């Protein structure tokens, strides 16, 4: 079975780009529009990894990370956060919340795949 990756972003184009890239690389991809939506979608089939934007309505990526880490089923899965800021503050906040890694926008499809390979066995 392919590994399932949940991409969480309020931008449809970002979700599509991530979806295309990772599907082409052989992963199953599910999309969620914000943190709330992501938590709902995680109640279904198990998710093996999360790629989440930080800035989202309803529930942002950092809050989502915190929620996922407190979830017995998901506390070990890799969570990658997407940042536009190159400043470290949000990244640090994400790390403190339990994020595994981060990707700085803009990134190329190859970079995305290499990061996923890095954290997902």
């Amino acid at each position, binding site marked *: 079975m392919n590994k399932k990756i949940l991409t969480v972003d309020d931008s449809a184009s970002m979700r599509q780009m991530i979806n295309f890239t990772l599907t*082409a690389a052989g992963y199953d991809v599910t999309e969620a529009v914000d943190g709330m939506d992501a938590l709902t979608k995680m109640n279904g089939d198990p998710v093996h990894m999360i790629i989440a934007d930080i800035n989202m309505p309803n529930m942002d990526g950092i809050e989502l990370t915190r929620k996922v880490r407190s979830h017995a089923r998901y506390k070990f899965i*890799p969570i990658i956060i997407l940042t536009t800021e190159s400043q470290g503050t949000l990244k640090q906040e994400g790390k403190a919340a339990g994020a595994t890694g*981060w990707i700085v926008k803009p*990134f190329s499809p190859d970079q995305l795949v290499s990061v996923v390979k890095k954290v997902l066995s």
Partner: protein
Amino acid sequence: MNEELNRGREVFREEAYELLAELENSLLELEMAPDNKDMMERAFRAMHTLKGSSSMFGFDAIANLTHEAETVYDLVRKGKMKVAKELMDLTFRITDQIRTILGKKDDSGLKDNSAADDIIRSFQAFLSNAGLGVSHPSAGSEIQAKRESPISLECSQKDSGSEVSGSKVTYRIHFRPYQDIFLKGFNPLPMLNEISKLGRCTLIAHADSIPDLEHIDPEMCYTCWDVILTTSEGINPIKDAFIFIEDNCELNITSLDKSGSFDSEEAHKQLRNIILEKGDLTEDIAKDLIAKRQIINTPKSAVKEIHLTDNTQQETGSTKGNQLEVSSIRVAAHKLDKLVNLVGELVTVQARLSQSATFSDNPEMLLIAEEIERLTDELRDSTMNIRLVPIGTIFNRFRRLVRDLSNELGKEVEFITEGSDTELDKNVIEKLNDPLIHIIRNSIDHGIEPPDIRMNNAKQRAGMLHLAAEYSGASVLIRIRDDGAGLDLQKIRRDAVENGLIKEESQLTERDIFSIIFSPGFSTSEEVTKVSGRGVGLDIVKRSIDALRGTVDIDSKRGTGTTITLKIPLTLAIIEGLLLKVGNNQYIVPLSAVEECIELRRGDMTNAYERHMIQVRGKIIPYIRLREFFYTDGNPPDIEQIVITEVNGKRIGLAVDHVIGEHQTVIKSLGRFYRDIDLVSGATILGDGKVAIILNIPKIIEYTESEEMNRFAGHV
């Protein structure tokens, strides 16, 4: 990959337009209520998403623009600056420029263009004028820097160039992850995998910290690793492999030699000594290691075990059910159109089924047909419902228009919208955009007076423009009301006579005169302004609304204002119709236009001296005989039927042979050949497979009037 990028760009364009609209709306709200924190956040988030996505899809110019805006609005958000008109104007220049870039289909707008640079310069000038000239790196250089590095993870830039790539170097990597790394989602194995792909690699796992089974915590990582790697890639890929975990582990990378001669027996001994000296390995393990490499694998499987326990834990955790559902989904418009078409076909087939069931004398069949009818009706209604979107989506666009126009014309206008949650068919709403723009332009340009004149006339300084939508039966009424100067009856009349639209001596009601302004080639504006009054204008409104089978109504009082009312049917694809029969031909009239049906006897006609007039409850109503209108062969029945319709406030009858009854009419266009025939608005397929023509009553009346007029003129 390229095709994907292109598809991604399409989605991005669509999304960018939405984000721009969102941004502009929240900015306009902010202008009115600068302290609205919520709006500020919305505006900021829209900018931020736009910046992130645009840079992803290579729209660097957009990324640069939004970056500038973001910097300024960050100051606003932090309370260091107020939202003022000048800033708004600049921001709108940015959104306009972004639209221009997005509008270029050939992707030529991807790279920086001078217009964008211009705006950025004015933004920076604005900042330094405001005394807040914060020096910041521009997004451009930031992005550029990222593009150049092979992997955008920042670390790769750190110490590049110190090693000459190409020559083989051997590194010793000591990697001891903190025990709690699983809780951050780390798995050391993929990282070690990545390392092992870089070159010739020897992996040594230290299992000695793993406690006894009874003391083991399956959520902890007890293993640490030593890696001996000979690679020609330099040190950066190694650092990259550990980039995420570097704060959560002890990591030590040392270069052992630069000769690449590690393979020799000599070097092995040398290495063993180093390791032994450091105390990381005992003599026994080192011997074992050199003897058989299997030992490397054992601790690896230990880690796997730990991982297996993770999985079991995950399984047990799967308890919560699906509680929340997705609130909305996005569907491509053409899929929806297809669905509507299919429902249309279904309605047609269902009509056939009902018809043959009625004649089949089979009660079972009749029951099924009724069931299907009920389901089809529901399906039709819900399908039509899907296509309905709130009219507010276009209302919001007009805010911007009103703001720009009033600035340009030096007028003050307060724009009020009402009923923006009124829903209309998506296609209808799109087609309403242009007519409404025209009307609003006219109201601001001709209707609302400049502030000083308003003050003199004891009016509020700012003019009021009211845009409201509401349901009215199967239609939606859209009212555009201003409290401006109103229409000048005399002047319209004079101009219309000058333009040859009416005759000097014509007797016209107030309403007739008002409706002249919708005639082609009419303009009362004394001087042609940039905004409106080029003689092309309101007639386009009339034509577009006609095309939607809607009506335009105008009411005005000199000095107090003008109200224009558009009446638009809720949907375009399926209407309730009245099926009529003349000879062997069948026609459909929209039921919404029908007032009543009465009988027409032979005697009534002779009583009226063969004039097409009939008296209904004391009122005389003219009628058109469709039999004559369409030159139908054969004789009419003794008792004909007259369907009385009301169009534009006039009651006109249509004489037909039979009125068959109500019919769910799926409107089909007649194709290119018949495009210019405006007497019919389409056709529909009946239950028995025959085609019925849908009549465009206003046009038929118009046509008959002009025919009669010509005949009358010919006689004289």
